[in-house]
């Protein structure tokens, strides 16, 4: 049985739906993460990263 026959026989129609659901799930997760208010401070700090070439912006504590 050649690869062509296997591919033709496999019902690839489902793949589109499966990937749609996976992509949508990933998108929702990203949106939740991005718009969740608990990360506002983190993003505000990250947004300022290009403005200072000399000092790391990520806060450190302990051994960091």
């Amino acid at each position, binding site marked *: 049985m050649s690869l062509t026959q296997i591919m033709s026989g496999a019902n690839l129609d489902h*793949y589109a739906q499966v990937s749609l659901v996976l992509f949508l799930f990933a998108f929702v997760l990203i949106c939740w993460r991005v718009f969740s208010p608990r990360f506002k401070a983190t993003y505000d700090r990250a947004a300022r990263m290009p403005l200072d070439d000399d000092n*790391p912006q990520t806060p450190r504590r302990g051994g960091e």
Partner: protein
Amino acid sequence: MTGPESVPARGVAAAATRLESFSYDDAIVRKFLFATILWGVVGMLVGVIIAIQMAYPASNVAPYLTFGRLRPLHTNAVIFAFAGNAIFTGVYYSTQRLLKTRMYSDVLSSLHFWGWQLIIVAAAITLPLGLTQTKEYAELEWPIDILIAVVWVIFAINFVGSLIKRRERHMYVALWFYLASIITVAVLHIFNNLVIPAGPFTSYSIYAGVQDAFMQWWYGHNAVAFFLTTPFLGMMYYFMPKAAEGPVFSYKLSILHFWTLVFMYIWAGPHHLHYTALPEWASTLGMLFSIMLWAPSWGGMINGLLTLRGAWHKVVDDPVLKFMVLALTGYGMATFEGPMLSIKSVNALSHYTDWTIAHVHSGALTWNGFFTFAMIYWLAPRLFQTDMYSKKLMNTHFWIATVGVVLYILSIYSAGVTQGLMWRAFDETGRLQYPDFVETVARLVPMYWVRVVGGTLYLAGAVLFAYNIVKTWAKRPAAYTVPVIQAPALSKTFVPEPLRPGVDVPATAWGRFVNMTFHRAWERMPVTFSVLTLVAVVVASLIEIIPTFLIKSNVPTIASVHPYTPLELAGRDIYIREGCVNCHSQMVRPLRFETERYGEYSKPGESVYDHPFLWGSRRIGPDLAREGGLKSNLWHLRHFENPREVNAKSLMPAYTHIITNDIDFASIQKRVDVMAMLGVPYGDAVGKAPDMARAQANAIADDLVQTGGAKGFATKEVVALIAYIQRLGKDIQGGPQSATAKGGYSRSPATPNARQIASPIPAVPSTIAPSGGGRP
């Protein structure tokens, strides 16, 4: 404009932490900056030259300087040399600063720079020589392709190595755009350039026909996406806040912009193949993803422009911001128009016309060009540690270039719409209003002259830009100061940062989840992330492309379609060498105005032996898919000698060198053998190809003499090219094959004549299975 920051710079105030000292490598940024300027001027100059050649055909200088050979040189120079070096300039400058580290290796940086310039020089030599793989933006032959892959991997190692030794925990969004671009470009380049060499600078694509077309436009569109868009967006997210002296309007939006773009872009390629022999499901999928791209593109544009909130007064005063605002506006226009052109009904009008050229240039001249100018104007005083030579020249450049862009795109939009409408115009009796193709080209010549003016203005602006930068460089200090930066290394053990000061991350699993501890963990694994991204990109691409390769119903075979004879194959290689595909398509769409003009629409099964495919994307000359047998051999000979003697309004260059050059019979066997290796059923032709070619060439030469031509063409290249052109479209016409075709392999019985041009609705031959995408 001020010089660099004070020396020595302060480190982070953390008494308990050991600080590491380092400096940024700006020497490599300066090198890339000069390369950008040099290749920019060269690439734009070639653009102006080919613009003149289209308005004034006598300015083609055969064989090396014809439109067909220079057009790929222009596109490669502006995309890979100008925009490419601009990307490296911006990436090397911003990456080091965003990561608080020097690049991973100075040696790799240097190899990257010189390797890339070597590639450009090789391209500038081989393309005018006619050494080409013919696929758009992937014309460079296989030895150069290998060099590109090697240099790109060097760049990737250097970039990812820098990510690993970074001193900043969070990777700023610009870096995500860079990483996605580096990975995707590598994948695109390798898969689209899989060829079997037939000589040191000759090769055949391993894909044929529909599959090759699909692969090419998956590559071609994503070259626009991941070479001209995402790296520039990354640079926009760094340099726009720099120039506006404030953070980006919404960092959240920039993250959404990134994820939505990288999810969607890779699917959009098939919109370059609407109404072609590509299966319809693929073309619809491409259209839908292209339309969805509207949202992230405009989100990104608005995000960039709103970064200037509260700083618009600076735009009046600062030429850097002027260039950036126009660049973003151009990005907005081009990304509005792109989805629109991907809608099938719009594409039916725009495809094969200058509208596409106008679309590309409105995006490239503003978004890529203006952004590069802005970035370099911003960088120059900092890299050369002095003030700009002349702010006045910067403003002059801005206005000259803006007027140039307006002239260019207005004239070429008009040309595209004019030609598209002329092609589809029917008179009241239901016949084509402009049946003579050349009428639809001659009408465009005045607009082509306006383009020459617009392009020249843009080039003049670029020359002013180069002058201004060189003069600034001349004012540089005797020795550059290299600031020493101090920062602690990232610790190996990661302590999650508190979301709010003083509130620790809860120790429960749910607490860790909602605080996205896992995300911080991912961020610490750039190499793993890159590999997984690579897998995701490849899998997503293969889901779209593999079905056309492996599902039989997508490419119905046609029994009467046979491989090219050895002489026709040699002729096809001349067609490729001269870049004929840059002006002539070979793909009749199933639209009435096309089938009326050219005949039966093209089927996927017709190009199964086309390694590479030659469907084309632009018709400056007529489609040639059904050209075989329409004109005599002698007509073609005279036409190559001087097109305007046969057709007074033609824009085609004269190809006298084809008439005087001898056919390289010795190399034909190798070409046939490689084709046979790719699965083309050559049968008997393997082993006696040169003899078969000579026999067919003699037959055509005899015919030329009988019809009143001169003697002695039997060994000339023109005979091979005529053999190829006379073969086009003959396979599905059935009946006796072209009298000159003397193939040594078996042919199936005659098939019904598919080309009843006189009949209003062309009949589909019964031997052709229903096609996946074609419609009558």
